[in-house]
């Protein structure tokens, strides 16, 4: 066998790939489910926190700032490990899926709150005053005047951050979640062949490369005008 054949036999072994394709596909489904859950809950929670923060209740705002800072400074993997291996000692044993989802959603929530808040703050005060003086209520002003402008401003930084955090679904492997990387790793040790890992890598590219390319477009479309 030539060197090249040995290489393809190890890394692109058709037999092994065929055998483990269903596993990798199942991992992809789980990764997609997890990613959607993280993005929706994380962004919504972040927006909610930013809205609550705009009410200007001092002690509540301190709490929000603390929580946001906490999840911005902790590595996501540390949060996952803490929830999965730590919480059972407190009598609550979340599954691998719930631990990973909760951790990543909290981290995304923190970053999203910060970005939404920056967007809200960046709207000039005069707009608040003008809107309120026309008879709009606080909530109406927020919904119809401030948020539409603030959200537009936040789209580019939010997209990048969301992609970076969603890629973190791979961290679920550490707590034995059967997402793409987890499936690929166990298939690799079962078959003693790295082909499943190559499939896993390809699966990530299939999922995330279109998102990254779309983000590039979004970035230029909604970029901050200098």
């Amino acid at each position: 066998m030539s060197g090249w054949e040995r290489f393809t036999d190890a890394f692109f072994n058709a037999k092994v790939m065929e055998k483990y394709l269903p596993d990798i596909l199942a991992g992809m489904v789980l990764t997609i489910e997890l990613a959607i859950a993280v993005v929706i809950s994380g962004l919504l929670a972040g927006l909610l926190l930013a809205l609550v923060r705009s009410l200007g209740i001092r002690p509540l705002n301190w709490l929000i700032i603390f929580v946001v800072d906490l999840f911005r400074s902790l590595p996501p993997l540390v949060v996952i490990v803490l929830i999965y291996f730590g919480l059972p000692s407190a009598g609550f044993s979340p599954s691998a899926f719930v631990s990973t989802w909760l951790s990543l959603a909290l981290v995304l929530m923190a970053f999203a709150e910060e970005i939404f808040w920056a967007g809200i703050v960046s709207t000039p005060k005069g707009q608040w005053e003008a809107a309120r003086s026309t008879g709009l209520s606080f909530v109406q002003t927020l919904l119809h005047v401030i948020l539409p402008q603030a959200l537009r401003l936040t789209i580019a930084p939010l997209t990048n951050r969301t992609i970076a955090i969603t890629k973190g679904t791979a961290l679920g492997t550490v707590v034995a979640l059967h997402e793409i990387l987890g499936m690929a790793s166990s298939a690799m040790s079962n078959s003693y062949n790295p082909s499943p890992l190559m499939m896993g890598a390809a699966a990530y590219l299939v999922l995330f490369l279109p998102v990254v390319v779309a983000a590039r477009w979004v970035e230029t479309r909604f970029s901050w005008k200098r």
Partner: protein
Amino acid sequence: MEEIVQSFFNREIAEAALPIVLAGLLNTILLSLLVVPLGLLGGLLLALFAQSRNPVVRWPLMAWVDFFRAFPPLVLLVLLFAGLPFAGVELGGFTCVAIAFFLNTGAYYGEILRAGIESIPRGQVEAARSTGLSGVQSMTYIVLPQAVRNVLPDLLSNTLEVVKLTSLGSVVAVPELLYQARQAQSVTYNATPIVMAAVIYFLILWPVVRLLSRLENRALAGRA
């Protein structure tokens, strides 16, 4: 309540685990001191080459950057650590982390620095060149200092992410903070060491997060 204190803030275990966890902290700091300059260097190279107007240079670079933005760093790390040995290349966990970070964070730093360089008007380069500075000199003395200042918040924010990312080293047995804490946890059957690691991460990185939050708010407000 008593039980929670026992399993999360256990004093005896904290005292016993402290040397182990601190050794991990030292490695996390050393690892960061290695991977941040490495990533910056990779990013600078990418950003400089991206200035080329030749599409044969530009397109592969863009593909390279997008590839690593789409690829989870942990997958890259596992590929290097568990995949490469099948090709007869066995690298230690530490080397794998260094290479993976060079590739992954280099792409992110590269995008930031590219945006910085492109924020400097072309007229400045033309003016610099017309005073007799060479291309390299005008890049080094005129463009880069201003470019870096323009994107300083983004650079800082990415550096924060890189330092947090060093926790991935625990997956390939690099004895950094998280790895050490998990070792201590598995020996003691108690979550206290992991809480300690989390507290250490928080105490070290919180000031950076505060600073960033200020810089970001100011940046966004200035652009509205």
